[in-house]
């Protein structure tokens, strides 16, 4: 699938990548580096016609451990270093000099990370912080939840007893967290635990994503190299064990496609990015034929290749180091980006025949 991928190298090592959620016209991603010095945020704009990447660089004072873009204003972004900071990036008109470094305006400094509307969620090793943004200069933490109660007390457990990742429930005010071997949900109004599944994986869970098309459906990935999809109402067994042996090390990131939720991306420190079809537990399973035709790419030459089934669609192996993050483009359903520690960003596309299969052409 090399013909569908574009590679871009950052100058430093990097761990984090985020889609610019509010940019629905162009595929834009933010990447942050964890170099010794000269750290920077890269805004990568992907042109899917000639498959090129236009970078814009912004200086950042420290290593960037995570990054997130404001869902409404593309010029606002949070980075997590220590502490987390909300930045406003300057509008850049002239793009001809791509090596020029731009400076960000520091807006708010927070202890941690995560944005929804004007509320910010941040996590540290065992707490969730819910903060709200006042005006645009200060933030106030309104809720702190200690999640350590969901972790095992066994000191010799096969997992790291720390909060690893969190995702908003897009359907209600709830946060889904993973850490240790537990998958938990937290009601952000009451601050109470809404569900909990311990020993969801055999080792530490590092990745979580919520299916935006189907309430209660969550994907998790862990150190046991497995990916499970859960229905949080019935947590006894996962509703799907995604293709068991496709990864051979820790899963660092999972991502549902927000429109075609049968497409699930996973990335792992075994240097692979895998694209799975999880149609049996997706919204498409009862829609029968998906009506969305986002791209307008109803090509005549597409042959009907039969109904899609569960399974590994494609493995992307352009990375040579651990792939820490993978993200779908908010602008184009079929485009996604992945970042590996070596500072390599790969923007790839879903294979064309799979695309046709899903569209039913």
């Amino acid at each position, binding site marked *: 699938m090399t013909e569908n991928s574009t590679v871009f190298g950052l100058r430093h*090592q990097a*761990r984090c990548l985020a889609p610019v959620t509010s940019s629905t016209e162009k595929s834009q991603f933010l990447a942050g580096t*964890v*170099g*010794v*010095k000269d750290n920077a945020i890269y805004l990568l704009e992907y042109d899917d016609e000639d498959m090129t990447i236009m970078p814009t660089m912004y200086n950042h004072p420290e*290593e960037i451990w995570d990054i997130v873009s404001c869902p409404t204003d593309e010029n606002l972004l949070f980075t997590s270093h220590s502490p987390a900071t909300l930045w406003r990036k300057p509008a850049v008109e002239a793009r001809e000099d791509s090596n020029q470094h731009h400076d960000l305006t520091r807006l708010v400094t927070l202890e941690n990370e995560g944005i929804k509307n004007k509320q910010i969620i941040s996590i540290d090793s065992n707490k969730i912080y819910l903060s709200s943004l006042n005006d645009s200069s200060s933030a106030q933490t309104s809720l702190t939840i200690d999640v350590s109660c969901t972790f095992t007390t066994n000191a*010799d*457990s*096969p*997992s*790291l*007893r*720390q909060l690893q990742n969190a995702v908003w429930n897009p359907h209600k005010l709830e946060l889904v967290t993973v850490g240790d071997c537990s998958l938990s949900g937290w009601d952000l109004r009451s601050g109470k635990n809404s569900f909990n599944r311990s020993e969801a994986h*055999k*080792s*530490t869970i590092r990745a979580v994503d919520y299916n935006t098309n189907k309430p209660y459906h969550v994907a998790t990935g862990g*150190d*046991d*190299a497995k990916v499970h999809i859960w229905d949080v109402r019935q947590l006894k067994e996962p509703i799907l064990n995604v293709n068991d042996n496709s990864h*051979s*090390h*820790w899963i660092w990131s999972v991502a549902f496609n927000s429109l075609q939720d049968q497409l699930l991306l996973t990335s792992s*420190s*075994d*240097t692979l990015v895998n694209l799975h079809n999880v149609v049996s537990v997706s919204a498409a399973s009862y829609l029968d034929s998906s009506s969305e035709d986002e791209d307008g790419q109803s090509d005549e030459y597409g042959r009907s290749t039969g109904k899609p089934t569960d399974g590994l669609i494609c493995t992307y192996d352009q990375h*040579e*180091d*651990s792939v820490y993050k993978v993200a779908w483009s908010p602008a184009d359903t079929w485009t996604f980006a992945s970042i590996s*520690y*070596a500072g390599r960003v790969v923007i790839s596309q879903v294979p064309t025949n799979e695309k046709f299969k899903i569209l039913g052409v």
Partner: protein
Amino acid sequence: METSTQRRTKPRERNSLLKKYYGLKDTTVQPQPTVQDKPFDLDGNTFNSKIREIDGDMKTLVYENYNKFISATDTIRKMKSNVQDMESEMSRLNENISGISKQSKLINQDLGPNRKKIQQLSNVHNSLKRLQFIFELPNRLQHCLTKKRYSQAVKYYSKASKLLDHYKHMAAFKGIERDCHQIMDTVKQDIWIAMTDTNVNLQKIAEETKLLLLLNEDPQKLWKKYIEIQISMLNRKQRENSNPVSVKDLILFYIVPLEDIVKHFENLFLAEEQVSEHDISSVANLNFKEKEEARNDLLNAIHPHIETFFKLAYEFIELPKNISMQDTTLPQVQYLSELKSSLLDHTHALKSVAKIDERMIKLTADWEHDLINGLFDSSLTGLGEHVNKFILSLQEQKDDSTEFDTDGIAGFIQDTQTWLIDYFINSCLLPLKECLDITQSQTLGRIQVGIKTIWQKIADRFENVYQASKLDKSSLQIFMLVGSRLCYDLADNGVFQVYSLFSSQFCKQPSTSDHGTYHTPDLDSKIEPALIPDMNDTIECYLKTGQTLLNKQMMQEGYRLSSRIQEAYLFMNITSVIQVSEIWYLVYNRLKYTERLVEAVYPQSQNTPQRTSVDNSESEYDYGPYSTKNVLQSTHSLTTVSSISEVQPLPSSTRFGSNDMTLNMMNNIDKLFAERVDIYRKVDPTPIGICTGLILILLKSFLEVTREMKMDTVYYQQIQVDIEYIKRIIWPYVGEEKWASTMLQEVLSSAFNNKNEVVLDGIISDEELEINKAVTSRELFIPLLDSFDANPTVVTKRGYNKAFMNACGDTRRNDCEKKKHLLTIMDTYNLHLIGMIDEYGSESNALSYEKKTSTFKNENMKVYPLISEKRESEGKTTQLSETLLYSSVSTGPDNLKQYVMNQTYFELTIKIDLSIKARVRPVEEP
């Protein structure tokens, strides 16, 4: 030329002339030139012999024909005289015959008129007789009626009824007919009454029914009545014997009467044509439809009884819950065969009408199936007991979780496998052979399926052992390994053994009768082809289960340790580097423990030749570090390690590290050529295999966690120190593996990338050198501690695996112009220092030295794995003096090696870690 042709043809002509004379067909008129191979050689042997041969032929021919002629003449003469006699005889015969015919004609003429008369008279007599019979009929019938001889009455009546019917227009007959009818009605009524009488027996009822039939009763009514009566009688009888105590009783009370009922019914109503010789028209002439109806009625009526019978029969042969056929054969087997034979022998009617034989076959099939499965399942219970005993013994010695009973484990594996196979063979298969009819292919098939099922079940048990048992962690770990080993062993030969026995004892008809004993099946004895897919499936399944268990166990350990590693580094809080991070000691202990454990579980692999089929050539080098292969390997590893130490950004080359782009690039290039290694992968069932797998997991976690760390100088130094330690502890397992060094290098470089400025020093100080100067002996001498007040534990004669002294250290320093090398001999088992040797080959006892020198206590010594150094200036690898020692230990004379390996060592509890003096002090910038 011409003469020769003449000569050649002459005998031929003669021959044919002769043949013509005697009337023989001349077949060889055409001369055949090919016959004569040498035509011109007149004096040759061939020619002469030919002539002689032909001459002989002629003589024989003449003689034979003459003989024939003589005998023919004789015969003709004889014939002539005989014929003359015969002619006179014939004429006499003729005369006699004509006389006889004349006589008979005369008699015939005389008797002619009388004969006709006689015939008429006899006809009249017959008619009269019949008439008389008819006229007497009412009286006779009456007589029969009064004497209750109904069958006689019916016989008479049925004889006469046709006639009466025919002549009923005549008044005289009419009267008789009326009388007869009346009487017969009474007879009929009487019979009906008699039939409903409950005390008559079955036979009688059948006869009475027959009579009624003959009296033209409505057959449908009759058969219904018949069934009703018979069934009620049967019910009564069975009620009296509701609990048959033996199969005989069962047959007697349940099947025999039923059979009788059906037999009579069949004769009465269902028979195709009259077969009975003594009763004319004894059977109701029913058409096909009626017959069907009758049959259905009968079936419906007897169905509950058949059901009861089979229920009872099933009770008889029902198997006990836990079947064990160790000593006694089951009585059920006897019952079943009785049932079978009596059913098949005595129930022709039931068979044809109610298909009872099919039922029986089904019952037998079910029973066999139950028996087979029950028997095999009993092995599960036995296995469970074995396992429980083992688990108990595991938990008994639970005082120290790192200890285990090697012999116990090995014993358990051995015992369990032998027991299981033995049980299969002696308690399942052989008894089955005794009690089942193995000539039937269905039975064989069932046994085969049974075998496969039980293998499957056992495999499932093993695979899910961790869910079922409530074992503590270390016992579970042991048990999973043991289970894995068992699976491998079974796959290796257990399965084959069972199948080959099955094949030889069951599938091929054994010529000799064998009881209870079985011979270990020959390897070359062919297994029934039909079994091979089954066997292969099973073997494959067991290999898979073994692998799964092994992997599961390793992964579990890997998860735990890597979590600990992550915790250790993420929560690291140190201000200066004092020693190797605690976590690596833990890792090392776990590795050692795992190695010992796997060693205990998979010990014999080095001397089982048949295992090579499973893990081919690898097994050779996995075991026994003393094998030459291993030694060579170690030699290779020396260079590999050294090459790393040059490439990696060691503290001494800090200056070069300032350009981290270069470092990155080198890293990437290295990675580009590195083989991709799957971190979570299938491991070989060997100590090395498992430890290597574990190390791979741990190193990768280490790499990941160092990337997540916030680095500063101290942390970086710590990681460096740790890496040195790691290199040493993993070296015995991974040897020269590229991935290990690459991974560690990556850790360092990623750590290096994360720190800002680090100045590290790995150079050893003067004091350290001072220690090593002391040289006590020039010979290679592995010192024994003579006396040591630290109260040493004496460990006698460790197995070489455990006290292999291969890791020789190289302590370097750049002192003045001269490089000095010091070699340390390490006990890799616990990384304790045993001896040291310098570049002149002198050697000292580190431990006794430590006693003398206070400097040792300053924790100043650093130990590297033995490496041969490549000097850049010279561009060639210089073999340093430590190589001498190394080679003397590893490749030197046998007695020396033996001496070193068989030495008795003292294991010392020393507060200071002698193996790695972890103090790495920063050096002041010049």
